[in-house]
């Protein structure tokens, strides 16, 4: 029999793809608060979550939504919230809590223009540094990016996997263009998706210590209600989970929160690389801007300019090694982004001043066009 026309190919906007990805990643708890341009994620999950026994709740504010997500995750459910700039600001304290207490969860931020209420219906990439440093205190951060509906679907799944693996909040940064553009998405066979579920203790409750030193630096937190009674706190704590003022134990904890990411960089970071091998100019772009940059690479090549693209799909940890390696082979960098150079600074740092870094910035709520990128590449040469 001829295979039926594939029903795994569909048209959907980035926000729908995000919701679909969450469902397929095994997300069974969503708490959110309405905010443009992310609301479709909540709306889609309100519809699909109960049918699989999952929980959806619209909380009274963004802060509460983040709190509910952490509480739910401690019972073992894969949990998520979605928001945009102002809501992302409100969630920061509890994102820091999830980092400190090492509670896995996914926070999607559909970026719009800021500061403040800014441009609710236009795209921006102004929250990139906020994703890294938005919550007070030192800690490692994982923040993913997506440039299409397809990639939003895939990155949502990856966000859950990374959060469950490294026991921490994982941020997915998309922008309004990606979130609201309807395009083709090919859904994988559910059985073919690799899912990571957080480890559970193998020792008896009597021997269990929630923050015991482990080989990979990642704690094993038992699900609440399974007989392992322990304490979770945002205060500096020792391996028992109780607060401590012991300087050695505090130092160990704070360093570990960063080290657990640093030592697994290779497993986490990822970049798309296009025509970099012989490139004179490397374009660094992410999110919807990367799509213009891809087009720009081909326009440049047509015009005889050797341009290439490095497009990180993981913004944090920053792909320093990949950028340095690229810097060694090119004459200049062009960093194109819808902010005033939040990632350009990182590229300058990572490339150790070996090449000049040219900035292409747009903060008027409109997309950076391929032509603008091409012009910048010409300037850079």
């Amino acid at each position, binding site marked *: 029999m001829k295979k039926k026309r594939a029903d795994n190919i569909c048209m959907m906007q980035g926000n729908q793809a995000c919701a679909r990805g969450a469902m397929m990643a095994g997300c*069974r*708890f969503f*708490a959110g608060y309405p905010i443009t341009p992310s609301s479709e994620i909540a709306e889609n999950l309100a519809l699909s979550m*109960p*049918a699989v*026994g999952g*929980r959806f*709740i619209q*909380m*009274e*504010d963004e*802060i*509460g*939504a*983040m*709190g*509910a*997500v*952490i*509480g*739910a*995750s*401690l*019972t*073992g*459910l894969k*949990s998520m919230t979605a928001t945009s700039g102002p809501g992302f600001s409100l969630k920061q*304290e*509890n994102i820091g*809590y999830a980092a400190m207490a090492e509670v896995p969860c996914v926070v999607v931020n559909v970026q719009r223009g800021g500061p403040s209420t800014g441009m609710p219906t236009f795209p921006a990439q102004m929250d990139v540094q906020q994703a890294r440093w938005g919550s007070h205190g030192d800690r490692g951060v994982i923040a993913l990016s997506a440039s299409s509906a397809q990639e939003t679907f895939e990155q949502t799944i990856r966000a859950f996997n990374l959060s469950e693996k490294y026991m921490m909040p994982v941020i997915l940064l998309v922008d309004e263009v990606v979130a609201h553009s309807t395009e083709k998405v090919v859904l994988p066979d559910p059985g073919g998706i690799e899912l990571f579920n957080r480890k559970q203790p193998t020792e008896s409750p009597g021997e269990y210590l929630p923050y015991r030193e482990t080989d990979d630096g990642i704690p094993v937190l038992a699900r*609440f*209600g*399974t*007989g392992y*009674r*322990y*304490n*979770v*706190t*945002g*205060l500096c704590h020792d391996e028992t989970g*109780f*607060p401590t003022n012991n300087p050695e134990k505090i130092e160990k904890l704070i360093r570990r929160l960063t080290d657990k990411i640093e030592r697994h960089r290779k497993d986490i970071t990822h970049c798309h690389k296009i025509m970099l091998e012989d490139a004179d100019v490397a374009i660094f772009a992410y999110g919807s801007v990367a799509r213009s940059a891809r087009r720009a690479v081909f326009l440049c090549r047509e015009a005889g300019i050797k341009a290439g693209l490095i497009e990180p799909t993981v913004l944090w940890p920053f792909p320093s090694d990949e950028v340095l390696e690229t810097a060694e082979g090119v004459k200049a960098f062009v960093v194109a982004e819808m902010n005033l150079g939040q990632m350009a600074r990182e590229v300058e740092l990572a490339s150790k001043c070996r090449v000049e870094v040219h900035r292409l910035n747009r903060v008027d709520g409109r997309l950076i066009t391929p032509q603008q990128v091409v012009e910048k590449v010409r300037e850079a040469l």
Partner: protein
Amino acid sequence: MFDYLRYIRERNFPHIWCSGCGDGIVLKALIRAVDKLGISRDEMVMVSGIGCSSRTPGYVDINTLHTTHGRAIPFATGVKLANPKLHVIVVTGDGDATAIGGNHYIHAARRNIDLTVLLYNNYIYGMTGGQVSPTTPRGKRASTAPFGNQEPAFNISDLAEAAGASFVARGDVYHAQKLEKLIVKAVQKKGFSVVEILSPCPTAYGRRNRMAHPVKMMEWLRDQTVPVAKWERLSPEEREGKVRTGIIVDVDKVEYTETNDKLIESLKADK
């Protein structure tokens, strides 16, 4: 003798509360209530925010979650909705629940989610050194109200009632046995339950308001509290300066997680 040691995390004692702080008395009443209820400790989760009262979870051997300032109720909402079989007790204070967390407090009551909130009211921010709180009575002194509080106070039990709570009671640590009974009733109640617990803070509140000695504060609780039944018979003049204690609201209403469970069941049945 009641064997409290079975329920406490002895390694963390003596606790951090000041001499004469009522919070230890509440903890004991809570432990006796838990013992009476016979609920498995593995199925209990205690969630707290930030402040003196919110340090309670560190001392009880159940699943405990010490969260961010004002956010205990949302965290607890997540725990409860994710696993409605768990008994979730929120331990919070007047500042935590009705200032920074006031929004969550009223919305959880409106939602009528099955949480038991033990709201320790000491009329002040104790842990940060005695700043004025939403329940500090007008005219009383605090470190940020050195000339006396200029604002009127919240009646936090009335607030819970107005917002839709199923069960609202007020107890105090002088009447510790009564308090234990109120906690038992609150935990048993399906729906959003609040027990406002008057728990003295001699250090931050008493010292500034002529009740520096813990005994003075206990006497004040003894003398100002009036049981609900007696309260009904008092004239407005006689009620002046008094606080009613006992069960204020006890009604049956649709509970949130049950509603959500039913939705899930109905969708499964549709398939």
